[in-house]
């Protein structure tokens, strides 16, 4: 499974969903991911930690754009390739609810500042 979900609380006490992402993401994975955040985790704050080497198929990339309607979403990655891939995917979106970070603490601090 390329996704591992945890329900946690930020340092300031805000509940959020932490998702560890790794491996190859295909359309089925993307559908599952979007369904979670437009379903049971709707409007929840999300912190996705994307491992180096994670790759997205073309169809998965397109489907993940549907996440635009979800709650505040911070992505943490140390991989230049993953960050570049995400930049390309989100370039046309200009979504103020989404940001990419290199540091998880900075990401959590940003999430804490976001309104639900």
């Amino acid at each position, binding site marked *: 499974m390329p996704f591992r979900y945890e329900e946690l609380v930020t340092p300031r006490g805000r509940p959020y969903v932490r998702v560890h992402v790794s491996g190859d993401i295909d359309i089925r994975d993307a559908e599952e991911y979007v369904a979670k955040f437009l379903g049971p985790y709707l409007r929840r704050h999300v912190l996705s930690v994307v491992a180096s080497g994670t790759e997205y198929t073309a169809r998965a990339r397109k489907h993940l754009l549907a996440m635009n309607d979800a709650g505040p979403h911070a992505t943490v990655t140390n991989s230049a390739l993953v960050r570049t*891939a995400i930049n*390309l995917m989100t370039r046309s979106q200009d979504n103020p609810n989404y940001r990419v970070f290199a540091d998880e603490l900075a990401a959590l601090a940003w999430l804490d500042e976001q309104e639900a």
Partner: protein
Amino acid sequence: MSVTIEGERIDQLLRIIVAAATGDYELRVPLVEEDDDEFLEVELGVNYLLEELTLGKARSDGQRQQLEARAEELAHQQSELVQALSTPVIAVWPGVLALPLVGRVDDERAATITAVLLERVTAERATHVILDLTGVGTIAGNTMPALLRMVRAIGLLGASCLLTGISPPVAQQIVALGATAGGASVRALAQLSDALAFVLAQKGALQR
């Protein structure tokens, strides 16, 4: 924004773009984590574009194959339909078959007609075959001998063949070949109904 890029990366990218421009979408720009600059986004963007082109080509190929299969199926159905319509053998009376021919008769059609008709003569133990040429405008040059061979073949199966509805040009063709060309005795009547009356009279089925 100013970025310094190694010439090798630009060369690689250009090679792949040129290959894509000639229809080869299989190559990808090699990416390395260490190239953490704005050009990496261009390289990855080109790879994404190539993936889209590959997917589009696969979709297009799939649709073309489906269309080709459908066209082949339709051509086959059309061929079957044309064959069925071009040889409408009708049993007008027990042991009496009629074949009204319409349109142009060429060698291929004459061969099909012969095959179908001989099969029906055998299957139905026909004693008479009425070949109605009312709807035949022209018969291709070499085809009349083929039709006369068919008349002979019908005779060999023990049935008599009658020709009706012969147009003046077709009559001239038959005369040119000799009415009994190759031993085929051709009995001609004006209309299909005349031939049917003649046959039924022979069979003693008509009360006068």
